């Protein structure tokens, strides 16, 4: 995938995912064994039993008298399965406890809200001035525990970044938390995993795990308000943004635009993708997106904008400056 971003439960990049992966390997081994054993027994039964046809006289000799050999075999089978199941159960519970053991010292706290069909992330901080909001993209420091507080704005969504941890549902009217840690740098793709309507398919979340110092640089930049556009085209674009529909729903910190219904665009140019992971973020896709999002993501709440192409260019140019 783009920027080498990973998406697989089999390539763990953090302790939780690693624990679960271990459990997967154990399960896979045991289940493969059992499968082979049962099908093997069936195969032998079919090979050794003599063949007959419908008319061959049924054997009723065993009625009323016990078949000790067969009974022993079956009893053994049941006992063996029970034993294996208990082993698996214990392993599962052990791993489950291990998942809860993640040390949370100086954890990074992020409030993640699910919307149809995008993610809103607010990075908490002791200093209110340091709290900032972004969307559809989480930057996290490698090696530092992350605590997500999960809430849903409309319907049930589910947070899932397979390389880092399992799922956690975002249920309206309830608050859930999930804690995980990335031990390797990289870009990991997350998905909404609970069916949430038309664009459930295009509700992705990019998680970028990077060395702490790079993360701090990113966070520092993210706290700043949007730069004022310098060249005239971008300035015109800002005017378009503020005077058209955009400002009704989007926020750009440092401008009058403070709509809260759609992703915060203060640093949109720094993101890998737009439309919650739907498109790569470049001027061409961006202008196509603004002109008619419904063609790209049918049902999305963003309306089509029949802007004159000059305005559209200006708008895209302006958004391009929001690094």
């Amino acid at each position, binding site marked *: 995938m783009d920027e080498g971003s990973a998406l697989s439960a089999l390539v763990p990049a953090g302790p939780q995912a690693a624990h679960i992966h271990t459990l997967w390997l154990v399960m896979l081994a045991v289940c493969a064994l059992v499968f082979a054993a049962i099908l093997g027994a069936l195969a032998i039964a079919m090979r050794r039993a003599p063949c007959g046809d419908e008319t061959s006289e049924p054997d009723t000799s065993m009625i009323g008298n016990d078949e000790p050999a067969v009974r022993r075999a079956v009893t053994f089978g049941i006992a063996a399965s029970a034993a294996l199941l208990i082993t698996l159960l214990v392993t599962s519970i052990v791993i489950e406890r291990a998942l809860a053991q993640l040390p949370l010292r100086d954890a990074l706290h992020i409030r993640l809200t699910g919307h149809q069909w995008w993610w809103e992330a607010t990075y908490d901080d002791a200093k209110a001035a340091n709290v900032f909001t972004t969307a559809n993209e989480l930057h996290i420091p490698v090696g530092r525990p992350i605590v997500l507080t999960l809430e849903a704005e409309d319907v049930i969504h589910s947070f899932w970044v397979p390389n880092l941890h399992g799922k956690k549902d975002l249920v*309206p*009217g309830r608050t859930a938390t999930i804690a995980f840690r990335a031990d390797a740098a990289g870009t990991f793709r997350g998905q909404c995993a609970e069916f949430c309507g*038309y664009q459930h398919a295009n509700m992705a979340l990019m998680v970028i795990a990077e060395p702490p110092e790079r993360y701090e640089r990113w966070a520092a930049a993210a706290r700043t308000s949007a730069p004022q556009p310098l060249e005239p085209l971008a300035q015109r674009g800002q005017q378009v943004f503020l*005077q058209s529909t955009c*400002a*009704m729903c989007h926020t750009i910190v440092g401008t009058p635009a403070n709509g809260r219904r759609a992703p915060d665009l203060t640093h949109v140019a720094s993101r890998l993708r737009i439309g919650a992971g739907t498109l790569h973020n470049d001027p061409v896709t961006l202008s196509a997106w603004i002109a008619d999002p*419904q063609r790209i993501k049918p*049902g999305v709440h963003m309306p*089509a904008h029949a802007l004159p192409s000059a305005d559209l260019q200006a708008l895209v140019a302006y958004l391009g400056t929001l690094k």
Partner: protein
Amino acid sequence: MNIRVRAAVLVAVLAATAGCQREARLFEPAAGSAVTPPPVRMSDLQPGQSSPPPAVAPRYEVNAAALAAGKRLFTWYNCNGCHANGGGDKGPALMDDVWIYGGEPANIYMTIVEGRPNGMPSYGGHIPDEHVWQLVAYVRSMSGLVPVDAAPSRDDAMQSAPAENRRAAQPPVPAAVPPSSQTSK
């Protein structure tokens, strides 16, 4: 026989169109949604026939998806900031039968696009036509002027009034007081 088949087909087609109308999801902007706005009407008195409302309105008023979108936008564009949930606050109530500037879709369209004296801002240019028409349809549903089986059900929120699909229709009556002296309602 043959006739019966044709009749059956006809019925099926009619039913189908009815179903689609009620429930079709209008992802694409409506053709002709960019109608030229009709003249602003300050009163319901007029010589001769009343002017027909624009063709696009009905498409929204019978469509559950459009009405639901209108209900969502009513909050998103902060209409309830002044009109509360239709009960009225700084702005006039919308769930009653009094229409200061007329209750026809065209009138409501103009009210939203051009704004009105004493506080109703003009949203022209800030809201795409598509959304305006959805709001128009929803505003009319607030006083039960749209089919109940298309009107929105309750929200997952604190309840102030019965949902639009449980309201008795309140046909518009002429405003009791002249618009000029309107402050609240």
